[in-house]
C-alpha cells in the first residue's frame, strides 16, 4: 500500500518542513502541496502541486478548469448544481470535494457523471476538526462511493502540523464511519491517484 496525503496547505514557510518531517515519519510516500508552495520539496517524500478551484456557476467552473495545467492535481469545490455537474464530468478535475449542502443532488445520475469524468470524491479531514458533526457526511460519502463504485480520497488538508492525521487514525475513522476494513485500506491506497498524475513509476523507485 502506498500512502498519499493528497492535499496540505501550510500556513507559512516554517510549517512546511515540520509537515514534511511528520508525513515521512508516519509513512506517507507522497504529499500534495498547495500551489503557493510549489517549489518546496523534501528528499524523504515525493511532492506534487495541488490546485484548488471553485465555481459559483457553470461558466465560472469551465473558466477555472481552463487554467489548470498538466502535472498538477486539481481539487474542485463546487458551490451550485451547475458547477458540480461540470467538475464531475470533466477529466481535468481529479477530485471533487462536495459540500453537504449539495446532498440532494447525490443520486445515480451524479454517480454516472463522476464515472464519465473519472473523478474521485474528496473529503478533507480538517473539516472534521472544525465541525465534528461532519462525520455523518464522511459516512454518507463512504456509503455513496461503495454503492456506485466511485473512488473516495481522504486527505488531511492541514495548515498546521497538529492538523495532520496518522494513517492508523484515518483507518479507524473509516471503520467507525461504516467501512469494512478491506475497503478502508483500498481508500487509503494512493496508487490510483499517483497513476493519474503520472508519477507512479517515480514513487515505486523511491520506495
Amino acid at each position, binding site marked *: 500500500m502506498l500512502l498519499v496525503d493528497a492535499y496540505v496547505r501550510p500556513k507559512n514557510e516554517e510549517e512546511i518542513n515540520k509537515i514534511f518531517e511528520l508525513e515521512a515519519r508516519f509513512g506517507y510516500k507522497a504529499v500534495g502541496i498547495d500551489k503557493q508552495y510549489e517549489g518546496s520539496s523534501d528528499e524523504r517524500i515525493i511532492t506534487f502541486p495541488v490546485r484548488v478551484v471553485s465555481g459559483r456557476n457553470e461558466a465560472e467552473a469551465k473558466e477555472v478548469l481552463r487554467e489548470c495545467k498538466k502535472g498538477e492535481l486539481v481539487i474542485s469545490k463546487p458551490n451550485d448544481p451547475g458547477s458540480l455537474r461540470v467538475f464531475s464530468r470533466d477529466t481535468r478535475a481529479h477530485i471533487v470535494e462536495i459540500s453537504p449542502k449539495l446532498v440532494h443532488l447525490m443520486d445515480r445520475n451524479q454517480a454516472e457523471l463522476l464515472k464519465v469524468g473519472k473523478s474521485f470524491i474528496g473529503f478533507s479531514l480538517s473539516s472534521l*476538526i472544525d465541525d465534528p458533526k461532519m*462525520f455523518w457526511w464522511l459516512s454518507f460519502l463512504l456509503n455513496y462511493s461503495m454503492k456506485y463504485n466511485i473512488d473516495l480520497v481522504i486527505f488531511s488538508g492541514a495548515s*498546521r502540523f497538529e492538523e495532520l492525521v496518522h494513517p492508523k*487514525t484515518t483507518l479507524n475513522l473509516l471503520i467507525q464511519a461504516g467501512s469494512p476494513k478491506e475497503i478502508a485500506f483500498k481508500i487509503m491506497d494512493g496508487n490510483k491517484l499517483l497513476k493519474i498524475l503520472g508519477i507512479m513509476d517515480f514513487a515505486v523507485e523511491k520506495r
Partner: protein
Amino acid sequence: MGIADITVLLCLGLSVANLFMFIYLLIYKKRIETGREPNLLRGKTIPAIRTIKFGKKFRKRYIIFEVLSRDAIDGETVKKHIKSAVAKLFGEPTVMSSGISLIFYDEKTNIGILRVNRESVSLVIASFHIAGKEGKEKKLMLVPIKVTGSLKKAKELIEKR
C-alpha cells in the same frame, strides 16, 4: 419494664434484623456475580453496557500514544481532550461505556498509556484526530503508537523506546 429496657430490646431487635439483612445481601450479591440472579439493583444502563453479557469480565486494552505539541502539556489536559473528542464525535454515553482512563503519562517524553474497553479501541483512536482543539486552533496532535493487551507489555514497550 421501664423505658430503658424497651429501648435496649428495640436496639437488639434492630441489630439482629440488620445482621440478617446483611447476610441476605451477601448471598444475593454472590448469586448476582455467578449469574444465577438478575441484577435488579443496577438500575437503568446505557445500551452499550446492556449488550455486554451479565457476569462477563470487562476486557481492557492499553493504547500507547504520543502527544505532539508546541507547548508543554500535562496528563490531566490530555485526558480532558481525549474524553471531549470522544464525546463530540460519538456522544456522551460512549465516553462512559468506553471506560477511558489515563494510566500513565510522561511529561518529558510526551508518551502515555490509555486504558479503554476492548470494544471501544477503534472509536477512541478515531477520535484522536479531533482531540486538542482549543478555540479555533488545534493545540496538540495525538499519535497512536501501539495497542497492547496488558499494562506490563505497554510499559516494556515504552521503556524500549
